[in-house]
């Protein structure tokens, strides 16, 4: 399965490099949202719960743009048919797409999080960067797993741009809660407050549960 996953990832990265359909859109959305919050909230800077909420809601909505595009080439250019006729484990498609969405989220955050700090954050990240990275990685993993599952389901429908957010956002509420709760103290004090490790545990548990669920059902989603 590893070779199939590698082939699918490589293909998706080649397509993104050529078309620039997902990452630039997600990035532009994030930065634009931060700019709008900067002016819309009419504050010089944010901290704590509010900053954490703004960060995670923005990143989640940006992720939805990526989910919407994740399977479009497979649907519109026959990728599903080509894949389904190949003698490969169908779960490879789920793994590859989740890895690709995870990579897209990380790429977006490389720019979006510094933009957030510059545009909106008062105390700065300070010493809290390692903890913030841990939250980002676990939250991205959960978003990638659920986003891949819902993306595969929603792309079969005509109203995918509506269906995917409607299905994904409720399922991702636990991710937003846990990520925002874990991030808030980091953005309040720049890492001086104790880090709420239990919220990392919640994120890890969410990732494990939905990862297993997606692994179990993804094959059936590809059936007509």
């Amino acid at each position, binding site marked *: 399965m590893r070779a199939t996953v590698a082939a699918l990832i490589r293909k998706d990265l080649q397509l993104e490099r*050529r078309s620039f359909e997902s990452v630039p859109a997600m990035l532009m959305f994030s930065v634009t949202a931060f700019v709008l919050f900067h002016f819309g909230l009419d504050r010089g800077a944010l901290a704590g719960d509010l900053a954490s909420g703004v960060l995670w809601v923005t990143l989640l909505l940006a992720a939805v743009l990526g989910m919407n595009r994740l399977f479009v*080439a497979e649907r519109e*250019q026959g*990728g599903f048919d*080509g894949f*389904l*006729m*190949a*003698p490969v484990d169908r779960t490879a498609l789920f793994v590859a797409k989740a890895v690709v969405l995870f990579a897209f989220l990380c790429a977006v955050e490389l720019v979006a999080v510094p933009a957030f700090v510059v545009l909106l954050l008062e105390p700065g990240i300070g010493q809290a960067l390692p903890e913030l990275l841990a939250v980002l990685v676990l939250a991205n993993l959960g978003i990638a797993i659920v986003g891949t599952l819902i993306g595969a389901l929603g792309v079969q429908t005509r109203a995918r741009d509506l269906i995917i957010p409607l299905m994904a956002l409720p399922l991702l509420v636990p991710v937003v809660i846990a990520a925002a709760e874990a991030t808030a103290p980091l953005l309040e004090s720049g890492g001086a407050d104790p880090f709420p490790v239990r919220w990392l545990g919640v994120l890890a548990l969410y990732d494990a549960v939905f990862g297993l669920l997606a692994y179990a059902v993804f094959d059936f989603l590809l059936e007509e």
Partner: protein
Amino acid sequence: MATAATGGSAPAVALEGVGRAYGERVALREVSFTLPAGQTVAVFGANGAGKTTLLRVLAGLLRPHAGRAIVLGAELPREAWRARGRTGLLGHEPLLYRDLTVRENLRFHARLHGVAAARADALIEAVGLGARADDPVRTLSRGMTQRAAICRTVLHEPELLLLDEPFANLDPGGAATVAPLIGRSSGPARVLISHDAEQGLADADWVLGLRGGRQAIWARAAEVGVADVRRLYA
């Protein structure tokens, strides 16, 4: 007209009363035939007669809703995994990513099928696409795209070719170039959808005629005349 085919080896396709519907609309109804390995059936029928649905059922991409379908010894859909990688589908869509080059597309499919990249490169040269191999598919003419799609179809040396108007968009030179890959002498059994009665009959061992999803003709090609085929379109 003949109603069955016999052959020494296991048939490539054996259908018994196969049906398929899309919601309320029945696209295929009680289609039954047996295609021996290595032989060709030409499928004729007007638009909407069920030809493409038949091809997608045989490819394992659509489940039959009625009857029994066996492809390369695998009963569909229960054993569809056994036929995967042994059929090659050339439909209306080329199943190629438009933003990838011809070579990238074929190497991607080669990886999925466990085929060496050299095979993809050799096919590109064989169909005369060497000079355009590193151009994105979206920049190719329809004929060139069709040639690339034919390479994709035969890349893994399938035992059953499912061909939907394979020579569409090809000029005579292009058709001659791909003939060794998908023509009658290429080796595998073929299910060949055609609207060209003369050419289809000349290129086939058997004829399947569909009208409104129903099987109107199943006979040896030698027993069917052009007029019989043309009546399907009346």
